[in-house]
């Protein structure tokens, strides 16, 4: 009888140990979440979209595992902890990738801005050279006003770069380059028109 009592107490102890003492890995959850937040803060939504999606999916899978275990009598959080640790490590790796990608985007935006500026300067130089005869005066005045509009747009490219909107800056710069090239073509056509008259 005594032995039976001892065995029951021991059994209850074992059950208690397995069911209650296995705590949810809240610290690991917080750490994994913080690591993902850091990726977002670093610009992951822009520069590591796919990776960020995978991180969120992996975190969700780990949380599902925690949730599943929490409903069991014999809770085992080992696998969930491993998953969370992996999410954290992956997030740190992704975060480490972002500065290089950001730099790459910044360089591309700066290069596009330089190209746009060069195209703008070329159009301006052509306009300066264009013969301001009666036949071209109207065209030149219009193109000068067009260039003034491009100057405002160029300022917006710089503003976008300052605000770290590198993709937006690049798109705008490429559009300015196109427009400036179109103006250059118009100036050349105006010059040709004058030449043709002589």
């Amino acid at each position: 009888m005594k032995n039976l009592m001892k065995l029951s107490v021991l059994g209850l102890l074992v059950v208690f140990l397995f069911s209650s003492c296995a705590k949810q890995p809240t610290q690991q959850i917080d750490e994994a979440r913080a690591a993902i937040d850091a990726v977002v803060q670093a610009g992951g939504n822009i520069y590591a979209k796919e990776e960020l999606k995978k991180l969120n999916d992996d975190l969700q899978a780990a949380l599902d595992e925690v949730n599943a275990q929490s409903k069991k009598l014999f809770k085992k959080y080992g696998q969930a902890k491993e998953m969370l640790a992996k999410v954290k490590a992956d997030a740190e790796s992704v975060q480490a990738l972002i500065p290089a990608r950001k730099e790459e985007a910044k360089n591309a935006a700066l290069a596009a801005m330089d190209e746009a500026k060069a195209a703008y300067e070329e159009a301006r130089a052509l306009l300066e050279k264009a013969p301001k005869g009666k036949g071209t005066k109207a065209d030149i005045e219009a193109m000068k006003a067009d260039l003034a509009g491009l100057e405002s747009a160029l300022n917006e490219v710089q503003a976008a770069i300052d605000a770290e909107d590198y993709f937006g800056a690049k798109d705008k710069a490429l559009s300015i380059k196109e427009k400036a090239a179109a103006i250059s073509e118009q100036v050349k056509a105006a010059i040709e028109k004058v030449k043709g008259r002589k």
Partner: protein
Amino acid sequence: MRKRIRALIVAVQISLILAGASCKTAPAPSEVQQALKQEQDLWRAGASVYAAEEYERYREDLKAARRFYEREELKIGFFRDYRRVKEEFSKILAEGERIRSLVESRKVSQQNEIRKFLEELYSRFELLNSLSLELSQRSFARNQLSQADVILRETERLLEKEEYDEARARVKTVEYLLNQAEDILRQQLGRYMDEEEIARWKKLAERAIEKSRSGNQLVILVSKLERKLTVYKGGIPIRTYDVGLGFNGLNDKLHAGDNATPEGEYKIIKKIAASQFGRALLINYPNEEDIKRFNEARKNGRLTPGSQIGGLIEIHGGGKDGLTRGCVALDDGEMEELFRMIPVGTPVTIVGTTDSNNKIVAILKKERK
């Protein structure tokens, strides 16, 4: 006894090996991996944006199916049954395909909506652009139009990248810039939409034609908006020439340096065979009415006390596609013809337009109501 036990053990071992060999675990259904890949593809296609609710439900179903699959995986190979797993994942795949079509159709519909708006803006841009170019009112409106042109190009890039929210924002900016350009043009050209003003010009033109008819004499009528100079004789137009005007040619001249072309009734007071711009016919600007208007403007403070009324307004050569400081310019060959035809004293009437459905009305009335 020992021999029997040994034989039994060997028999059990052999049957276990045989059982293992014949009951090989079936491979996991290919639908599982397909579904996982499909989920990634759907996300890449923008399902979380274009079919958010459906995609969320799909993900929940996928999660449940995965749990079911994992439970099945935990079973000993012999007891695994993937039939239901296959069934569940097939359903997921079918739903995924439905969502993919939904995403595509919603994307196309968004793109069409933006594209339609964009087309309207392109057409509006073209109209305002041509108006601005033709009317020489360039200093302000061209700046806005140039910026609008750049943003229209940006919008095309965003549409290519399927960034519809950004594209929509750009479209709004273009609309704002075009409104500004239109306001500027409207301020400058409002007179050409004013019925009373057009009626006044019509009267002036009719009087000029009547003068030509009654006296059977040559009369010059210049219509600034249409950029036409017509010579009438006996009330009938005998020659019409295309002309160029001042930088600010569509405005009525008020003072020296405003680069506007005067409006009113004048006459040729001098023929100049070799002016700076070839043949020239000098008109009697300022006439009495011009002087009266100038004095009133100075009196009510619209002009500074130092302002001058200006003069030396001519019909001259040099080319119709140039910009003058207020004169009316023709191509040299045509000017030569006109110069020979027109004697000193010929009446000259200059009006804004006589067409109440002129192009400014046509363009600006179509714009924002």
